[in-house]
């Protein structure tokens, strides 16, 4: 499983960080950083929620 963020769409709302802080982090520069590009399978439900709730639909899960 691979997490892909379209940074042209991302507006750093940080919703994903609220759901899965293990994977997503918005830092002081207000940019989103992906902490684990290939997170473990047990995080899948959280990541699917992040995909659904991203206001810009900027997150995708491959695999």
């Amino acid at each position: 499983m691979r997490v892909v963020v379209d940074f042209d769409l991302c507006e750093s709302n940080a919703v994903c960080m609220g759901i899965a802080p293990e994977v997503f982090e918005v830092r002081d520069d207000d940019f989103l950083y992906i902490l684990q590009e290939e997170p473990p399978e047990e995080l899948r439900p959280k990541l699917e929620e992040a995909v659904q709730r991203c206001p810009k639909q900027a997150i995708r899960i491959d695999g």
Partner: protein
Amino acid sequence: MASTMVVAGASLAGMHAAHTLRNEGHDGPLVVVDADPRTPYDRPPLSKQVLAGEWDVDRIRLPGASEDLDIDWRLGQRCHGLDLDRRRVDLAGGENVPFDGLVIATGASARTLPDQPDLAGIHVLRTLDDCLALRADLERQPDRVVIVGAGFIGSEVAATCRGRGLDVTLLEAAPVPLERALGVEMGTVCAALHRRHGVDLRLGTAVAGFAGTDRVEGVHLTDGSTVEADVAVVGVGVVPNTGWLEGSGLTLRDGVVCDETLLAAPGVTVAGDIARWPSRRFGEALRVEHWENAVQQGEAAGRRLLVDDRDADVFDPVPWFWSDQYDRKVQLAGRSGADHEVEVVIGSTDEWRFVALYGRDARVRGVLGFNRPRHVMQLRQLVVDGSSWDEGRERAREIA
């Protein structure tokens, strides 16, 4: 025969309900009805990127529009009535759509001013058609745009118009913008932000009428003055679309009243701008007109139709929304308002980069951020936990 699910409203809430119904086990007919033939699309960009001319309309299509959910579409068809005994939705065109389960997500419509005349150049902003009509007027480079109402929509439209280099007058009847939503102190911060970006902001002034015969030429104010206007945008809130439900037996009170699992009647749920539900967490009935609520409530309302009463989840999240104005991202998690205490805990309002907490009865109920997305998300947990005011301050100090 397999049961039939009907979703009234192909909005964000309705499409998330349809998606959830399909993906969580409903394999019978799924009918989606909406009066707007262009749906489903996402609304936040209508006051921002689409209005600014930065995005094509294709970019705001909701995923449910293209996803294979095997939907039986009824677009461009208005719901006209609900018959709970016969279990059917009557459409304005005369068709009756029978259902076993129904999600009501018909949303809300833009409110207009009393006696608002039908002049060219006067706009509201709610639908994609509204947005495209306003955008066409803005592309003609009007000398001045007057915006009536400095709520979230009016504020975003003001910012977008300034981004287009247009002169803007923003009128607000209250003493500060967003007074009811954010209170006087934070409303004052919003007022300063508009003025810094060159908006002619007039506070405590209401509209007395419009000048012009075919096309709007000005806006008369209650203080006796007139502001010249080539374009006027009325942003004075919305009214829930409950007209088609009158006489149905559902309880209507500024929205459709439902229980804490979103059930309004057996087999009938509500979601999105139209839903009024009792929040245990906040001890009050809420109706929330924001994006994330529509997503979460749509999913919950769809799921509710697939489970027994005893397995139903209580819907009680901490609401969250954002508003982009100029180069600022305003975010609010939880509840706020003029009747709450408010305190800036991170940063400074002078730079429009800060976090403020809202509280009542010594508990944190809301977190407001200006360009502080990380801190808002971290402090949202205070509202989830029902933390004390002191705990909230302490936590803010730790993460700042």
